[in-house]
């Protein structure tokens, strides 16, 4: 009986899955959320850095679209982030928590730089390019396959494993930098150390990464949506046992998917080192390996949505530049808030919060169910004990068992109903109290608003007639009055 009592105790709020929201509504909600997020950021910018919301949002757009160069840089930064997010999508879809993108990108970059350093002056440039491409992609894939093998064969924790691989990659970059840069400055320069090797430009220096990633996006979309591999990895993600049951080689899928994931990270590293920076440092990935996780996740692992989510990240990152801030705390706050709001929106599109008293009604229906199950259990018990005796007696006994069971059933149900009723009453009282307080609060707010209004109108009047001889005297009198009422309110 105590057990049943405990079952009834429900939290005041609980979360349940929401019925599917129509896509029109979902889109509308998302658009409103994004606008709301920017409004909140605008208000914060007003409070924190004294830039009014309109100027703030104007500056964001200026930072992104202000000049032709800014547009190109935005597109290129977007493509690199998108590239890493694309790499993560198959891994996450397979429920393989690859948080080692940072290291995989770095390894891709490092392998590219190794080719540039050791082969740059020995082989013709196109051959070096080819080596860079192969090495960069292979190194990224290798860095992802190692934890995948451990996961597939010994079920090691891939989160920790991939995370630790990041630090190894960073130290390897540090190591090679220290070996190559003999003056000890730790700065690897393209012309001085890497023989000035860069991947060929397409049109201008921004276009190559953009095109490569555009192709990858289309490829990844097809791979995840229409290929057998894409299907297999999503089955493995849903349930490894199901995958095994239908004859999917889970180990193979894990390793293959991570190889793809790492190889695309390697492409990002290759582009960063070979086509953009011309060098590799421990900061080459610049935390994008982690930012890409949120991009991938918010984009629901769909490459097309991911274009939008990575645009959002780059928009905030680059847009904040013209604000001329000497401290990056503000931009970090804004980015955090915008994502917090958007993640919240996504959450409430698929879940809802229910209050307890709604639940209480459903509970009221439940005792019967609980009783039924109990009855069944007793029936089974009864049946077992009588299995050795004759059929007729067995039937009798079962009937008896049922009769016996009915009294406690009813007791339980009655007790439950009592509890539910009482809880209902308490809830009602609570709700009334809340409503009362809310009413009081509303009144207070109303009063406050009136006072504000009075204060503002007074202030504006003062501005309107600053030279008026009588005005100021009147106003001071009024101010005193308002102050008085303030005091009274406080006393209340």
């Amino acid at each position, binding site marked *: 009986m105590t057990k049943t009592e405990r079952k009834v105790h429900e939290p005041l709020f609980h979360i349940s899955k929401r019925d599917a929201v129509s*896509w029109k509504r979902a889109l509308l909600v998302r658009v409103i959320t994004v606008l709301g997020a920017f409004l909140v950021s605008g208000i914060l910018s007003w409070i924190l850095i004294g830039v009014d919301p309109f100027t703030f949002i104007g500056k964001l757009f200026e930072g*992104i*679209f*202000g*000049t*032709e*160069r*800014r*547009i190109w*840089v*935005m*597109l290129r930064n977007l493509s690199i982030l998108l590239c890493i997010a694309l790499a993560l999508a198959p891994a996450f879809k397979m429920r393989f928590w690859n948080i080692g993108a940072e290291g995989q990108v770095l390894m891709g970059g490092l392998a590219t730089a190794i080719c540039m350093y050791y082969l740059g002056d020995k082989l013709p440039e196109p051959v070096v390019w080819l080596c860079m491409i192969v090495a960069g992609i292979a190194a990224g894939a290798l860095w992802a396959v190692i934890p995948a093998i451990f996961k597939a064969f010994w079920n090691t924790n891939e989160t920790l494993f991939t995370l630790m691989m990041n630090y190894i990659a960073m130290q390897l970059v*540090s190591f090679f930098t*220290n070996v190559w840069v*003999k*003056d*000890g*400055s*730790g*700065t690897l*320069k*393209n*012309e*001085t*150390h890497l023989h000035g090797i860069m991947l060929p430009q397409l049109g201008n220096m921004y276009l190559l990464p953009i095109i490569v990633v555009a192709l990858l996006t289309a490829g990844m979309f097809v791979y995840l949506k229409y290929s057998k591999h894409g299907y297999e990895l999503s089955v493995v993600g849903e349930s490894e046992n199901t995958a095994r049951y239908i004859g999917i080689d889970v180990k193979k899928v894990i390793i293959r998917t991570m190889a793809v994931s790492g190889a695309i990270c390697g492409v990002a590293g290759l582009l960063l080192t070979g086509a*953009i*920076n*011309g*060098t590799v*440092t*421990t*900061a*080459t990935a*610049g935390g994008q390996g982690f930012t890409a996780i949120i991009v991938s996740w918010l984009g629901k692992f*769909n490459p*097309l*949505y991911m*274009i*939008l989510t990575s*645009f959002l990240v780059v928009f905030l990152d680059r847009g904040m*530049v013209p604000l*001329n*801030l*000497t*401290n*990056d705390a503000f931009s970090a706050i804004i980015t955090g808030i915008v994502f917090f709001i958007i993640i919240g929106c996504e959450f409430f599109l698929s879940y809802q919060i229910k209050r307890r008293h709604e639940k209480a009604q459903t509970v009221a229906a439940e005792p019967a169910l609980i009783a039924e199950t109990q009855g069944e259990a007793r029936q089974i018990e009864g049946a077992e004990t009588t299995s050795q005796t004759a059929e007729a007696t067995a039937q009798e006994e079962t009937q008896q068992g049922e009769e016996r069971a009915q009294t406690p059933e009813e007791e339980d149900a009655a007790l439950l109903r009592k509890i539910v009723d009482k809880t209902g009453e308490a809830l009602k009282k609570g709700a009334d109290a809340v409503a009362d307080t809310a009413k009081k609060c509303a009144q207070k707010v109303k009063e406050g608003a009136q006072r504000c209004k009075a204060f503002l109108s007074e202030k504006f009047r003062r501005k309107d007639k600053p030279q008026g001889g009588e005005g100021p005297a009147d106003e001071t009198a009024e101010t005193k009055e308002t102050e008085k009422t303030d005091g009274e309110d406080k006393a209340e």
Partner: protein
Amino acid sequence: MKKILAIAASAVLAASMVVGFAGCQGGGVSKDEIKVGFIFLHDETSTYDKNFIDSAKEAAKNLGLKDGQIVLRTNVPEDDSCYEAAADLADSGCDIVFADSFGHESHILKAAREFPDVEFCHATGTQAHTAGVDNFHNAFAEIYEGRYLAGVAAGMKLEEMIEDGKITAAQAKMGYVGAFPYAEVISGFTSFYLGAKSIVPEVTMTVRYTSSWYDEVAEKNTANSLINEGCVLISQHADSLGAPSACEEAGVPNVSYNGSTKSTGPNTYIISSRVNWTPYFEYMINCVLNGEEIATDWVGTLETNSVQILDLNTDVAAEGTQEKLDEVMAQLKAGTLKVFNTDSFTVKGKKLDSYLADVDDAGDYVPETEAISGGYFHESEYRSAPYFDIIIDGITSITT
């Protein structure tokens, strides 16, 4: 749904291609029109960058420039982002673009080649005198003199500790947290050591590196390991508050760099040396205003007030430190005292009569310039960035 999103995505891309094209080149050099862009590796939380940021603001104020005339870009990494930032500043009409970190140099040089009408100035760099790009300039200061003075203050403190019986002369071991085993750092800690040695001849010093210009945790850990190894005084050439805070926690005296860290270590901070960049910023802006050439390699000195020692903490420093510093400063200014006087140090037990330094920085690491003459090492004379990279006796440099 997918189709619409795809269309939306391509619309965004297309829109971004079309909007904009507002960049225009600033032409005039009148005081009302001049615009100066600054690129900083980190932001105000780094003592190194804060020193530059404060100097930029001060120079603008001294010259009467308005708010919009100096543009500050913080947290610009040492990669292509630096080129993009420089090019963006040039696009938006800056007449001068300045960058503050060693690793920015090649990216600034790239921008300088692309924008011949804009002056590009770079602190701590080494390539201007050989690059042959007219609008690219390096600048630094004879900070080794400031380091020497800070070393004198450290020596005074050690002497006081010996006299008080807290340590013996043999225990007078200092610790130094360096960023990289690079000439700028080596020159700095050697002059610091020589300053201390001029007061306490028995002093020794251990140097450990963090392999990063800014890594608060590594700097703090390195300072702590030096303290555990028995170092009784710590100084640093790295840009965070890591070492000063480790010293304050351990109660070990600290000689700081880039600016006063007295607020971090009120009970352990002695003195700080720094390069005051305001004179250079004023110089480069005035050059452009007057239509004059900016020097390819500009070196600030004690005389130009570019090299400063500041905020002596009399609660921690030994008695008479200020008087001693004034005396040594006068000698340095008069040129009667040379920091790298070859009589004051030995290398592997021998006096140094000749040393070829790698001044041209062509990437070959082949030294080509004789730096010792007249009985001293001529630091910062053949180029602004330091090139003294010798580990002298008494200093243990731990690179692994």
